[in-house]
């Protein structure tokens, strides 16, 4: 559905994207995760036709963003990082405005606007001006705006950034509801969000894809099935002694926090014995996308 090939983009002398290649299948929800300045927003802005690449191309359903930008843009609904909306508009008028610009037929526009307002839970605020809305409400209207023309592809750039937990959850549930029905590209900082929603995740750093796959695949790729987290009283500890154990795959000491990747639980008691009285607390956890992310970008 979306084919990103050899994208390179410079801002002045800074290379934001470096020969980026990515394929997104129809109906798939692909997450792009990466640190600040990794090139996530630049990549999706190019896909949306907002920026022009210095080299490379993006094709959507066979149409090139460089040759048929209008056709490609009409297939995409885009939610930018900040829900920057025209403050002077009322919610309903804003959706009508964008509906007209997207070429939604006049006879179905009113119905579509009402449907979307209801979908994002804003039907009671339809006549209110945008400048009276909180960030969460603006984000809801921005989502409705992105969906006004019922696009087959939706691109979300940090959709839950800066929102309260309840609104974030509502938006995640909303995105989850679109899975399978739409092709979705999701840029996020939140690993749990990517883990919960995405079919596949691409880790982007310095304008390049560092790793890509299903969340399970990526988590399995990092060392060990179990991570042992131990808090110690003093950093005077012999890491090599722990590392020498058979089930230990990786040992990482940061301050007074010791993180040990294990292939099995068999030697946990041996590790506890080696640390002895220096141990304050101990617990185990399964690897998360956070671990994958940190592992990929370090």
């Amino acid at each position: 559905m979306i084919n990103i090939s050899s994208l390179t983009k410079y801002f002045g002398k800074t290379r934001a994207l470096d020969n980026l290649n990515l394929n997104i299948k129809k109906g798939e929800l692909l997450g792009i995760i990466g640190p600040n300045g990794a090139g996530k927003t630049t990549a999706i802005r190019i896909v949306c036709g907002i920026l022009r690449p210095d080299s490379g191309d993006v094709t959507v359903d066979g149409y090139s963003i460089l040759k048929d930008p209008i056709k490609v843009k009409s297939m995409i609904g885009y939610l930018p990082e900040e829900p920057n909306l025209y403050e002077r508009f009322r919610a309903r008028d804003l959706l009508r405005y964008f509906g007209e610009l997207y070429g939604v037929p006049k006879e179905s526009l009113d119905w579509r606007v009402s449907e979307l307002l209801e979908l994002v839970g804003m039907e009671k605020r339809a006549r209110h001006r945008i400048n009276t809305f909180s960030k969460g409400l603006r984000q809801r209207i921005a989502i409705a705006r992105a969906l006004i023309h019922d696009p087959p592809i939706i691109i979300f750039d940090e959709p839950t950034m800066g929102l309260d937990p309840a609104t974030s959850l509502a938006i995640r549930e909303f995105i989850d509801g679109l899975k399978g029905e739409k092709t979705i590209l999701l840029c996020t900082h939140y690993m749990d969000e990517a883990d919960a929603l995405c079919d596949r995740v691409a880790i982007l750093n310095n304008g390049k894809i560092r790793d890509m796959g299903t969340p399970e695949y990526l988590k399995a790729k990092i060392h060990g099935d179990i991570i042992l987290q131990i808090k110690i009283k003093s950093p005077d500890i012999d890491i090599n002694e722990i590392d020498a154990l058979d089930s230990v795959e990786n040992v990482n000491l940061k301050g007074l926090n010791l993180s040990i990747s294990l292939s099995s639980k068999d030697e946990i008691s041996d590790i506890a014995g080696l640390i002895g009285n220096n141990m304050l607390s101990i617990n185990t956890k399964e690897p998360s996308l956070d671990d994958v992310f940190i592992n990929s970008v370090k």
Partner: protein
Amino acid sequence: MRLLKITKWELKNTLWSKKFIMIFILQLGVLILMMTFFNSFITGIDSEKGVSLSPSLSGFASIAVSDNNTILVNRINKEVLNIEKMDYKNSFARLKDGKITTVIVIPENSQKKVKRFQTISVKLYLNPEDPKQAVVLKEVNSSLEALSASISEQWIDSLIPSGKSANTRVKEEKKGESLPLQLINKMMMVVLLFLPLFLFGNMVVDSIVGEKERKTGEILIAMPLSHSDIIIGKNMAIVLTIALQLAIWILILLVAGFNIENPLLVYIGVVSTSVPIIGITSAVAAYSKNYKEAGIGLSFIYIIIVGFLIVPALAYVSNGSKWSNISPMTMIIRLFSGENTPAIDFLIPIFSIVVVSLVSYLISIKLFKRDDIVFGPRPGIFRLMLDFLGIKKGSF
């Protein structure tokens, strides 16, 4: 045509905006105040006590008059018009050379005809290429009307038996404006007509720089619209707003008693002039990073535009230079004065309007298309010019 949808919504938002309505009312207030003070000024100049006129207006034009009986010469304003004695051998040659503006021939037997209350025919020769001819013609006509009224009055008095006074008296109802006043009127009028074109710069800035500052431009560019749809659609809304305001403006001027010949052509001319001005403004706005920068840029650009409009118009009024036709303001002066103007003289300002419009809109669209201009880091003007000229590698 999605650009028309942008125009429709921009126009709707503008006309319904409280800020715009307030600005609109304030502008009308300023117009009315200007007219009031202008009228007071004219009254001051026109009063018999007299307010001294600008010295530059004395000797504005020269005319040759053959009027042995001095029935007309005495009524012409000699402070402004130099009157030469008619010399059949040289006067027409001087008229052709543009050294004098008019030749007036009063028949030799006119004194007798006036006494017998017979019609006299005054011959007036004008050089159609001399821009002063329209105002001189008005001045001469005013003098002739005054003369005619005086003769009519004497004639009516002669019909009434002696000892009785006439109930009906013929009066000179309209003295006519003096020549300097006509000149002041022309410049004042044209300034009033062009003023609205410079009052909408902030709207252009808001619609283009505002998209950058509010970061709404990102969404707009992501829409299935071309960059030219966005720029032209937005600017068209502003030109339509100007057209609306100008229509009201001209109606007020007409109602207030200002003499505007060809009001429709004048209206079309001024609205057409707004197109390149808005184009240049949008080019400045497209390049500017924020409102402050756009404001500074516009101050410089508007000084240049005003100079381009006014200087040739003043040159036209003072000496009728051919180059003065390049300014649309000159065209408007000639239109509302009702001058008999050859079509070729209108082609020059129309050409300048079309060329400047095309160039300015092209530059605006090119600038708005550039990622570095909209999202940064923005290149300097010198670098842009090099890109534009293809001297340095770039994407212009």
